[in-house]
């Protein structure tokens, strides 16, 4: 593990009895002493703190950085205001997904991008190669990032900042001080719960971690294991599992971040053509009827046992206490309520396509 990178919070994870895994070249906590299910429930019921410092940050500056970035992404930066964030795909000319991003519009001259850890070098190279009239800087090493998620998150964070959090609506952001540390405070997350993502100078992140735990004895640190179960219950795509270079946003159910009416962008003509022709397959949400979990890579098979699709994410849902998953299936076999057969160790196990998300947070 010697060549794996560590975040500024590594020692703090060890203090919380973290078990570490290699994730995108980083040595990251997969769970802490409480375990994945307890961590998952803490986020749904109270609050949890995630170290997401492995995520990449790319800062784009130029006379019209908004227009420059808008040419690379599927969603529309012109449709939001300064101070707003946008979830989007970054696509290849053929419509395949280079990465999914959260893009922050600071102003016409500055756009700040958060990307997946494993894609950081690829994204930076792609963005640098295709940007016109703006310059990208890889700031991944400069930032620590924490995600504070759960119904108790707003009150907990408000105790550590004078920035009025009630004024930061969902997918808006502000700059302020948190526990004495300058922060980009973003009302975003990957859990379905209310909460914030905090971008902090890498050398000062520890003070914020410590202040949050000091302020709330019930706060739990949350590892990648629960991050995965939380996002899966919301059908939030995970790059490398549910989406990649070979899948398009339309196939992945991300058509809502593809704005075909905006000015030209990379991948637009391919996505227009696919929309006109109809997508051949679609990412669906399913629930297993029995007790066997479905897992990433398992085949979806027809009545004769021939593969017709594949599971991209799957496992137990701690909220539902059932086994859930996502799978690509051929268009026409994707309707909610349709039966699926998931091949598990040579057997066909019954599943049913359901409406996503699997749960309604806050209910």
């Amino acid at each position, binding site marked *: 593990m010697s060549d794996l990178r560590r975040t500024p919070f590594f020692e703090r994870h060890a203090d919380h009895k973290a*078990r570490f895994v290699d994730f995108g070249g980083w040595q990251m906590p997969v*769970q802490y002493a409480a375990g994945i299910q307890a961590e998952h429930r803490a986020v749904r019921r109270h609050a949890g703190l995630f170290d997401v410092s492995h995520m990449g940050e790319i800062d784009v500056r130029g006379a019209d950085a908004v227009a420059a970035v808008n040419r690379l992404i599927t969603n529309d930066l012109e449709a939001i205001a300064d101070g707003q964030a946008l979830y989007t795909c970054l696509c290849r000319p053929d419509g395949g997904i280079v990465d999914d991003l959260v893009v922050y519009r600071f102003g016409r001259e500055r756009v700040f991008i958060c990307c997946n850890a494993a894609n950081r070098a690829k994204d930076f190279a792609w963005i640098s190669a295709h940007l016109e009239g703006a310059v990208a800087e890889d700031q991944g090493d400069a930032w620590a990032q924490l995600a504070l998620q759960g119904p108790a998150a707003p009150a907990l964070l408000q105790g550590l900042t004078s920035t009025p959090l009630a004024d930061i609506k969902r997918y808006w952001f502000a700059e302020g001080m948190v526990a004495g540390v300058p922060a980009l405070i973003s009302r975003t997350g990957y859990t379905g719960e209310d909460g914030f993502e905090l971008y902090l100078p890498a050398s000062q992140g520890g003070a914020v971690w410590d202040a949050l735990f000091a302020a709330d004895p019930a706060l739990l640190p949350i590892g990648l*294991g629960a991050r995965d*179960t939380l996002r899966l219950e919301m059908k939030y795509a995970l790059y490398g599992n549910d989406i990649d270079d070979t899948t398009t946003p339309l196939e992945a159910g991300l058509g809502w971040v593809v704005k075909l009416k905006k000015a030209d962008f990379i991948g637009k003509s391919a996505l227009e053509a696919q929309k006109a022709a109809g997508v051949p397959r679609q990412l669906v949400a399913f629930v297993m009827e029995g007790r*066997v979990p479905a897992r990433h890579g398992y085949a979806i098979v027809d009545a004769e046992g021939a593969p017709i699709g594949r599971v991209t994410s799957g496992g137990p849902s701690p909220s539902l206490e059932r086994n859930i998953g996502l799978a690509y299936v051929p268009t026409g076999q994707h309707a909610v309520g349709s039966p699926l057969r998931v091949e598990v*160790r040579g057997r066909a196990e019954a599943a049913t396509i359901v409406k996503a998300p699997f749960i309604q947070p806050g209910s």
Partner: protein
Amino acid sequence: MYPTELVYTAEHEWARREADGSVTIGITAHAQDALGDVVYVELPKVGASLSAGETFGVVESVKSVSDLYAPCDGEVVAINETLRKDASQINSAPYGGGWICRVMPSNPGQLASLMTAEAYAAHVAAEAH
């Protein structure tokens, strides 16, 4: 730290000789800790034949799927049905309520080649490096 009355496989199963000649099989405290929250166990069928070193079932945690390996040849004479409803017993009582199955060994001498608690502890320590 591992019960001395048990013997152990390199794949982290334990085996216990019972008075009637059968052998009870489970996974070790170390194995359940490494897996995390166990959510599902695929048990062998009563009457199934196991072969030493071959897989006979699966244990799944929230995150992972792991095969179970037979410590000896034999026929399954009992399975722990309670695990179907509460697989978490493997976490809470790996040497007790979390037992997986009982086997009547056809070649009991094979158990002598498994690890003692002391040797297993050394094996776990070596795997950590």
